[in-house]
């Protein structure tokens, strides 16, 4: 069960993987992949596993296989840092090239990767438009039309009988949407954090990533950390 909704008049599927699928234009959008986050820590002496890029790409290729998009959009912070491309393995670089084959691969730039890729496959853009929807990395307060953004790594905390669950989620008010981080090593920020204040008109809905389905949960049922 995936959640289909309208964002600023554009029909979008909020997939349980955290990817956004816009079927009308056959576009798959993923945010905050943070490739090579593991090796960025290793370079500073903390030996996190070097498998995060491979793992992120594995999950991404499942999504690509399932939807076969004409365009694949990385919504910024795709590379964890400016030197990520010097650390990425050839295998992972090849996997990215394979994803770009036969479709447009668009890297929207973010604060971690302001210059976009220099040698990996794909084109770089600041933002793109799909109908009335602008796709860019950072959410913008008071924008005059709809947007889809990443950057904030939203997650929701739900309390029920027997305990609390904290999961990545989409946050949307029907005009705007923040995507969850897709990267294997990306942490997340509770949607009740002040960073989300004032982004939405009224109380948004969190669409929480569950096992095999995405579940909408009302704002008033969510908890802060």
């Amino acid at each position: 069960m995936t959640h289909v909704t309208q964002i600023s008049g554009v029909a979008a599927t909020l997939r349980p993987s955290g990817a956004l699928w816009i079927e009308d234009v056959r576009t798959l959008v993923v945010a905050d992949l943070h490739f090579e986050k593991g090796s960025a820590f290793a370079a500073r002496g903390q030996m996190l596993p070097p498998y995060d890029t491979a793992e992120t790409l594995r999950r991404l290729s499942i999504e690509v296989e399932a939807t076969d998009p004409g365009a694949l959009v990385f919504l910024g912070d795709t590379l964890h840092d400016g030197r990520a491309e010097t650390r990425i393995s050839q295998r992972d670089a090849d996997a990215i090239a394979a994803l770009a084959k036969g479709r447009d691969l668009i890297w929207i730039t973010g604060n971690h990767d302001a210059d976009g890729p220099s040698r990996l496959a794909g084109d770089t853009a600041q933002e793109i438009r799909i109908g009335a929807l602008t796709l860019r990395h950072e959410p913008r307060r008071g924008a005059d039309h709809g947007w889809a953004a990443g950057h904030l790594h939203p997650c929701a905390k739900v309390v029920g009988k027997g305990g609390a669950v904290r999961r990545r989620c989409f946050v949307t008010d029907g005009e705007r949407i923040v995507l969850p981080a897709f990267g294997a090593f990306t942490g997340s920020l509770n949607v009740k954090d002040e960073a989300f204040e004032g982004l939405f008109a009224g109380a948004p809905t969190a669409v929480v990533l569950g096992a095999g389905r995405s579940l909408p949960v009302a704002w008033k049922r969510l908890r802060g950390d």
Partner: protein
Amino acid sequence: MDLALPDQFARWFERRGWAPRAHQLAMIEQGKLGRDTLLIAPTGGGKTLAGFLPSLIEIVERPPRNTPPGLHTLYISPLKALAVDVQRNLLTPVSEMGLSIRIESRTGDTNEAKKARQRKDPPDILLTTPEQLALFCAWDGARLYFEDLRCVVIDEIHALHSSKRGDLLSLGIARLRMLAPNVRVVGLSATVDEPEKLAAWLGGYSPGGVNPPPAPPLGRGEEGADPFNPPPPPGRKNGPAPPSLREPPPEGVDWEGDHAQHGGGGSPRLRRLEEELEQPLAGEPRRTTPSTAARSPSPYGGGFAAPGLRQVDIVRGAAGAEPLVEVLLSNNRVPWAGHTAQHAMDEVYEVIAKARMALVFVNTRWQAEFAFQELWRLNDANLPIGLHHGSLAAEQRRKVEAAMARGELRAVVCTSTLDLGIDWGEVDLVIQLAAPKGSSRLVQRIGRANHRLDEPSRALLVPASRFEMLECRAAADAVRENALDGEPFRTGALDVLAQHIMGCACSEPFNLVALYDEVTTAAPYSDLSWDDYERVVDFVSTGGYALRTYDRFKRIVKGRDGLWRVRTPGIAQRHRMNVGAIVSAANLTIRMAGRHGSGRKIGEAEEWYFEQLEEGDTFLFAGEVWRFHHVEGVNAIVSRSAEKDPKVLSWGGSKFPLSTYLAKRVRRLMNDESAWESLPADVAEWLTIQKEKSSLPGDEDLLIETFSRGNRHFMICYAFEGRLAHTTLAMLLTKRLDRLGVGPVGYLANDYALAIWALRPLEGLDFDQLFEEDMLGDDLEAWLEESFLMKRSFKSAALISGLIERRFPGEEKSGRQVTFSADLIYDTLRRHQPDHLLLQCARADASTSLLDTARLSEFLRRIKDRIKVNRLDHVSPFAVPILMEIGKERAPGSSAAEMILEEASAADLIEEAMA
């Protein structure tokens, strides 16, 4: 023997009107002979003084020298508070004797200026904790600092050895023995089941024989025959450790290593090692010690006199008077289930009112809060009753301790925080509220009462339920017979080893082989294979990943001199901030709401506790009722509440599982009808009716009952193997029942039994087949990989091994962030390198400490062909307690998480539809 005491000391004993005890004199003798010694003595026997007397005498009689003397004696205790307490107790005799000896303590609470001074100008005696020793081992000046060290005293060793802290401590001791070869190691312990095993733990292995043979000159010889051209290390796991790879086998030791068998080939890693070893390391001191070849495989298996074991003498103090242990027979009915003992609280209060000072032990901090509250509710006489548990702020605990020391309190409700040997003098009664779970722990706690050997300790056990009544009775009998639980001994954990190796590199460059020889002198690591050792070193250096992309980021590197060292000083500094083997659950600090944000700290509690609270809920903490506001970062913000009854109660059961030994005694008691007379009438009646309506579990049998209730079909197994083993068993049985198509929908386990309920009848099952031993195979593994227990173990291994850092310079990670990233790393690593070292560590930990699989496997063997199934029409008396618990427990696991999400989402839909 009196001659052993120098004048000042003999006069001091005289003035106090004391005679030195035999074991104190024996310890002085041992000191003079320079023997490693384990002192076993009951509390109150002058154990601590016995441990220190040899050092005090040695320091006083030390000839004057030109250079200031370094540290003479290092004392290590498992508790910070104990180190401080011993300092106080030691300073008294030292000042009364007029000795000029400097004694200082050093714990995590010691301020930085004092620590720095202690480093530059060491005292004669330093009192500290295992964590501080690990930190010493990671200093760059460790070798110089411990140059003059003569003695190490390890207190309450029985409480330390069987844990990861014990592993870390054993490695620290091995380090000290290397840095100061003449150091004498002394262990102090309460009475234990098998002191020889403890002595073997303390001693570990000698790195060398008495007179090591002179080594032949280094040279290259023929392949396979020359011991200097070492074979690749054998790859087996459990055989004797390989001989030191750069050393000849010692004379007189018949090392049967078959070189040809191991020669050539091997993995790339082995070849790397060979290359490394083939280049003689210039300037490296030649060691002439024989190595591990002379050892027996295990110090614990073959008895403590196995060759190669370092001999530790055992000195025993006189046994004290037999303790007087009673079980409270309440005038009220004994409850069917529960852990609070509320029914007997007024009787407990009466007993406290008659005692001089009572320690009231409970098993969890929530029980402590509850009992404290209840006692004050009854406290018309306004008796000063205090509260002490691990969640309270340190200063608050110290206040209580100080008031106890001054004799101002009449009772203290406490958890295991007061288990260990701080001398409170005035305590004349120990009350154990709810069942003790093990006889050794009970003996330890009873020893808190009356620190005088000639008077018996008095203890009262207060069972909280009917099964606990049986358990308390069995425990009281066990104490009377001085029958203790056997403690399991452990194999050293590799995450702890990783931390230690990194620490050694931070201290000074190390030689790969020399360090292997050093760590394998520590008993828990004596079986460490070269292979595993090398994997750990590789993990420390590069993270140990099959994908070798981190070789350029190595944390420790091998220099041209062949020695391994830390790559940058910054890496060493970060390591030192993360030393230790205690990983606490993610805790939140409880703070009062202040006018500007958060105010005074009240204590700490586990994060999960606050997850169940809504804003405005009231709960009990530190003996007061609080109103919960919200969580802010790592703080839970609260304010005082005027309410008397808190809304939220959460009384988890015991965190210690029922010991195997005590469980056996409980089964025996049930089958001995003549012993039922000592039980309250309602409990005896309960047993009688159980016997009539169903039956009692036999000494060695497993009793199973099946019955239906409502539209559910129940199966209750009275296994008496403790909650951990029961939970694992219930989970495995549920999987099987699922495959058999009976539709199991839930399970619950407590210390005595486990219940499983299903949609379809269970009485027709083949129970012998259901309980086949092979259930510990694939099902267990498959389940474990997904379980939250595994994630918890992984997180702890990741923290201890340094994969995840607890603290960065200038910043502390909150528990929450750590939890989160550890899970992400676990998921990724499991998919991409399932045989990674840390996953192996986590699996080993989970199966021993969290699942109790060893105990479960023994149980399955025992009950084979001994299963008795009673197919009942009604609920039996024994089934009532566990049925009452159903519905009160919180269900962990991933499917539960999905249900919570689903409910939240569905509730919205309903509201939307009805609006």
